[in-house]
């Protein structure tokens, strides 16, 4: 129980942990034959490591870390395209700080900035719109990145830019959606999953119904969870109870923030500005049908891919991931970060090879920060 005292309510945490141990026993799960629960969201992965939830729960539960970190699933080719846009004369390239250190084939955005490109870390796409207002002679490009939590922000920013007829603002759209990769993972015969802990803040935007297919078509339970460690434990218990009872449904542990039908204003803005791409490339997972968004023709003037003839607008392209990089296998739960031959050798947070080591929400960075370094010492 080395972390339990850190919980806001250690007594409640102990109660839930006892219930988890009991239900795991009732299911008959063991360390050799565990219940496999995927937490989809990178924020949850981070919390699991931070609070040692994988150690606190009994041996019969294995956490599989899902693809829910947008920085981690960003393919190298897209980073290269960012650098290409950023290095054009006259461009101000705006990005969330998280994306700065993701390696591209030649360089990261951080290196491109050091080489002289005007790259600015912003907090919000609103900052990029403001930069476009203040710099009418420059092209301001915002690197639109993230799942449904950040998609409404770029959609609303594009709508605002359209109302103001800002002709020097565009978005390099890399928004992706949560449900399609989950379907891809469920269709993967190598992947054995018994249930899911669903993302909290994504669900605040999309509601709980986009996950119905997981229960209905695949017979797996999903529980939408909040971010407090206790929320996570409670959600794990709810998943286990469904498994024990032979049920599969979508439940909402985070109903205090997540409305069943999501946020109507956000959903309307997304639908107005974006449409599904036929397919989109995910690092480690490959192309997944209808998993990414592109800007609709009505807002073409704000689409950096169209404006600069880059990315999917430039036709098909292939980029190889670096030698020995285990990101794909880790992302699909086939390999633990520590099993990657590069972990702690060619790849550390200071010199990341894969994106999973860059973001604090990446499984490799989480392993490293909360005990992975120790694991390497033990391996040596």
């Amino acid at each position: 129980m080395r972390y339990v005292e850190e919980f806001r309510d250690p007594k409640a945490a102990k109660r839930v942990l006892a219930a988890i141990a009991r239900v795991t026993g009732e299911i008959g799960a063991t360390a050799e034959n565990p219940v496999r629960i995927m937490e989809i969201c990178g924020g949850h992965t981070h919390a699991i490591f931070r609070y040692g939830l994988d150690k606190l729960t009994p041996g019969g539960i294995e956490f599989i870390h899902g693809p829910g970190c947008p920085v981690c699933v960003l393919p190298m080719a897209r980073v290269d395209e960012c650098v290409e846009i950023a290095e054009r004369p006259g461009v101000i390239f705006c990005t969330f700080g998280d994306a700065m250190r993701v390696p591209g084939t030649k360089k990261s955005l951080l290196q491109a900035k050091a080489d002289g490109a005007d790259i600015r870390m912003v907090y919000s796409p609103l900052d990029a719109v403001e930069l476009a207002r203040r710099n009418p002679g420059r092209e301001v490009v915002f690197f639109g990145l993230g799942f449904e939590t950040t998609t409404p922000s770029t959609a609303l920013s594009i709508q605002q830019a359209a109302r103001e007829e800002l002709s020097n603002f565009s978005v390099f759209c890399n928004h992706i959606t949560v449900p399609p990769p989950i379907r891809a993972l469920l269709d993967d015969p190598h992947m054995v999953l018994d249930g899911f802990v669903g993302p909290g803040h994504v669900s605040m935007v999309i509601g709980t119904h986009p996950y119905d297919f997981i229960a209905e078509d695949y017979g797996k339970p999903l529980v939408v969870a909040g971010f407090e460690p206790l929320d996570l434990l409670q959600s794990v218990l709810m998943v286990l109870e469904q498994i024990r009872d032979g049920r599969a449904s979508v439940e909402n542990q985070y109903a205090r923030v997540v409305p069943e039908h999501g946020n109507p204003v956000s959903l309307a803005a997304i639908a107005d500005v974006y449409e599904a791409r036929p397919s989109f490339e995910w690092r480690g997972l490959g192309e997944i049908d209808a998993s990414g968004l592109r800007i609709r023709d009505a807002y073409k003037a704000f689409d950096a891919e169209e404006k600069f003839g880059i990315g999917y607008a430039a036709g098909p392209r292939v980029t190889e991931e670096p030698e020995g990089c285990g990101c794909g296998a880790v992302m699909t739960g086939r390999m633990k970060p520590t099993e990657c031959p590069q972990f702690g050798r060619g790849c550390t947070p200071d010199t990341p090879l894969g994106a999973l080591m860059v973001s604090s929400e990446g499984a490799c960075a989480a392993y490293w920060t909360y005990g992975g370094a120790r694991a390497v010492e033990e391996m040596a």
Partner: protein
Amino acid sequence: MCLGIPGRIVEITDAARLMAMADVSGVRREVNVACVAGAALDDLVGAWVLIHVGFAMAVIDEDEAAETLEALRGLGEAQEALEQIAEGAKALAEQ
């Protein structure tokens, strides 16, 4: 980027653009309130909201705000969000 941070709306700054000033752990930042705007914008003043990359995405109660902040602090994500807000201000100041 993926986790929202609680803040309190202190003032409506631009009703036409649905912009408001929020207090995020003592740091002031202008945010868009389109996603949480009800009939009367002024009703938002004093409300706690969950803010994602400069957009208020949900109205939450005070206890929820306090608990979320504590969870984010535990993860180091609260500090990260505040640093990003500061970075944003810096990017705008650059010429």
